[in-house]
């Protein structure tokens, strides 16, 4: 029989047994026993952030770049509420996390005790699952179960709220065997006859397209290989959501680039005109579909997803396949080969696509000394691609330009807040990615407004000697807000100017970072080279054209074919219906 451990020791032991190497956290009264247990051991590394929101984003960056579960430890009350944005972000983007929160002792729960908040109540609908552990004897089992729930099925954040007395009392702990759950049993294997039907539909299609998403990345690296193989045998074009970038090599001739609101013209036109859409691990998000009743009107649709509630949620499909997208693609390939299928004659389809491609919708022309943001990102890509960098972003125009102009050739290299669109995500995510990948080049492509939302994390990178780079696309505006104001609200730039900006170089220097300013097209390469040459953390203030807009763009509520390709096609004032859309 095992000896009794305190709840806090059980936490550390269970995390160790689960192979956890790093946790991101911030201490406080209600988690002091756990911090004490961490102090006494040398197996788990603790990264002290500067704000709990950043702890969660760092754990997300860690998880997304490594495929492991990210772990967070924060105190009760404000520690927990500060973590809520990150937890919601992880839920929307299906990132596996376990978030441990301290809670006031059980006998004080419900009394408005100091730093008490209803953490399970607050996080109930922004987590995949949550627990309030009221008995030390249950703690070990709950932690193991939480990891299982976080990473299986559609991944997501799981919160474990642990009252302080539960951390102090003792109980026996034993590493459990195989983890199952009596009610939670995600269906992983796709239905074979549906898969056979899908194969027949793909083989018979004249204008097929694969519409792929972050589910392929979540399924693991093998799924990426399977997608590429599926593309090869079928000869069909592939487009990807923001979340799925990297699964198809950027330069692959069958890859049409990202689709959706700021996606490529060819991707959106192909989605509109296809006769068969095969959605693999994506969820028909409104940023992808545009106006629903005009979405791909003449296609049959197949949807493969691990989450049953994603099937037929916003778009009715002809064939829904519930299961892990990697496994389903593997079975598709088996059936394809067993039935001796050959790629169909897609010549006409590819020639249509070539016509759309010729519009060069991501094209831009860098003239003169004023830097275009697109050009800055393109050069950053070209000068770093040999190092296979991990890129995170904040939220705004720079994020969309990064998606358009930074090419990704592998999964787990692109970390961006897609579902929630959380400004302040990128720096802590880059820190988490750097912790998971010590030798990698990790760059946060930022906006000057977003970076200020978690700017305090400069200190975290300094403390742990993490050589992350921040590349600020500084247009002195909350550019994406300003763009919408220009397009929909008569160019009334209400509160979207980034007033009183700090001197980013001095700010970086105050934290021990190197600071670099780039303020001309001719100084761009030199600035990037200086950033890369420095082996510590670097903040680059790259000053770009103030009023550039991100195109192409499908205005909210418009259909794929109503894409705006250039600035001169915009209206300036939207009607009320359009204004009401997000």
């Amino acid at each position, binding site marked *: 029989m095992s000896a009794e451990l305190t709840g806090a020791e059980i936490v550390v032991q269970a995390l160790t047994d689960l192979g956890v190497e790093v946790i991101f956290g911030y201490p406080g009264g209600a988690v002091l026993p756990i911090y004490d247990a961490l102090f006494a051991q040398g197996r788990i590394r603790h990264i002290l952030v500067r704000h709990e929101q950043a702890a969660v984003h760092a754990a997300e960056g860690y998880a997304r770049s490594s495929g492991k579960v990210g772990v967070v430890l924060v105190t009760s009350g404000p520690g927990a509420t500060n973590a809520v944005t990150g937890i919601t972000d992880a839920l929307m983007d299906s990132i596996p996390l376990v978030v441990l929160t301290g809670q006031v002792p059980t006998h004080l729960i419900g009394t408005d005790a100091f730093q008490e908040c209803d953490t*399970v*109540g607050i996080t*109930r*609908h922004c987590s*995949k*699952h949550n627990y*309030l552990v009221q008995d030390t004897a249950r703690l070990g089992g709950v932690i193991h179960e939480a990891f299982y*729930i976080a990473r299986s099925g*559609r991944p997501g954040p799981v919160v474990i709220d642990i009252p302080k007395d539960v951390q102090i009392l003792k109980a026996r702990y034993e590493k459990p065997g195989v983890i199952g*759950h*009596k*009610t*939670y049993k995600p269906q992983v294997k796709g239905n074979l006859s549906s898969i056979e039907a899908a194969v027949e539909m793909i083989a018979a299609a004249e204008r097929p397209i694969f519409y792929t998403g972050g589910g392929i990345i979540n399924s693991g690296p093998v799924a990426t290989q399977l997608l590429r193989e599926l593309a090869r045998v079928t000869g069909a074009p592939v487009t990807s959501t923001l979340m799925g970038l990297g699964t198809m090599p950027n330069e692959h001739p069958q890859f049409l680039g990202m689709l959706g609101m700021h996606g490529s013209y060819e991707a959106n036109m192909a989605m509109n005109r296809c006769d068969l859409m095969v959605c693999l691990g994506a969820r028909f998000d409104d940023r992808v579909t545009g106006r629903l009743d005009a979405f791909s009107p003449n296609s049959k649709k197949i949807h493969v997803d691990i*989450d*049953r*509630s994603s*099937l*037929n*949620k*916003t778009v*009715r499909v002809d064939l829904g396949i519930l299961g892990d997208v990697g496994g389903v693609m593997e079975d598709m390939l088996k059936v394809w080969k067993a039935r001796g299928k050959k790629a169909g004659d897609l010549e006409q389809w590819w020639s249509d696509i070539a016509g759309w491609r010729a519009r060069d919708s991501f094209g831009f022309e860098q003239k003169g000394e004023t830097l275009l943001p697109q050009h800055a990102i393109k050069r950053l890509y070209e000068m770093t691609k040999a190092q296979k960098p991990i890129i995170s972003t904040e939220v705004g125009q720079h994020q969309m330009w990064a998606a358009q102009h930074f090419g990704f050739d592998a999964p787990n290299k692109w970390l961006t807040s897609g579902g929630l669109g959380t400004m302040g995500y990128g720096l802590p995510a880059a820190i988490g990615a750097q912790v998971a990948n010590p030798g990698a080049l990790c760059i946060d492509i930022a906006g000057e407004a977003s970076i200020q939302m978690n700017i305090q994390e400069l200190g975290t990178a300094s403390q742990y000697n993490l050589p992350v780079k921040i590349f600020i696309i500084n247009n002195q505006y909350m550019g994406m807000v300003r763009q919408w104001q220009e397009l929909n609200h008569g160019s009334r730039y209400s509160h979207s100017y980034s007033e009183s900006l700090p001197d980013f170089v001095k700010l970086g220097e105050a934290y021990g970072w190197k600071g670099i300013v780039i303020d001309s097209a001719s100084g761009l390469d030199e600035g990037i080279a200086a950033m890369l040459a420095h082996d510590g953390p670097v903040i680059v203030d790259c000053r770009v054209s103030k009023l550039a807009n991100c195109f192409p763009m499908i205005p909210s509520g418009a259909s794929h074919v109503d894409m705006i390709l250039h600035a001169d096609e915009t209206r300036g004032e939207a009607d009320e219906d359009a204004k009401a859309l997000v």
Partner: protein
Amino acid sequence: MKHLPSERHTLSILVDNEAGVLARIVGLFSARGYNIDSLTVADVSGDHAVSRITVVTNGPPPVIEQIIAQLDRIVPVHRVLDLTALGPHVEREMALVKVAGKGAQRDEALRIADIFRARPVDTTTGSFVFEVSGPTSKVDQFIALMREVGLVEVARTGVVAIARGAEAV
């Protein structure tokens, strides 16, 4: 999709009897804008392990499908059954109906109660409390009639339902 005609569906949700599970279910309905016409919940196992939640909801068929899929993904949910779609089932609810009045009104209340097989469970010289049970429509009808003979207040349980036949679902 939301413009299709609404349908009434009775869902039976078997859940692990753990803290917060009802809040998860109810919160899902409010967070996603689904309707709850009635809701009942009680422990139905010998060992307090499982509760049955019966929800009557309404919405167009795709919305009902979403509700079921969303409920199904809540971790402590064992099963979600759409009794309306599954076929023959029995639905009952109970109401306690208080009526006050004198003389002829009182006689009439008793007569109606008799027809509806409603039992007086509390009596004063000026009032009755009737216990009535049956399908929702019968309870509705009873209350509507009582309104005309001195209805004071009503308490209803909401619908409980179960599939017909020998098998457990």
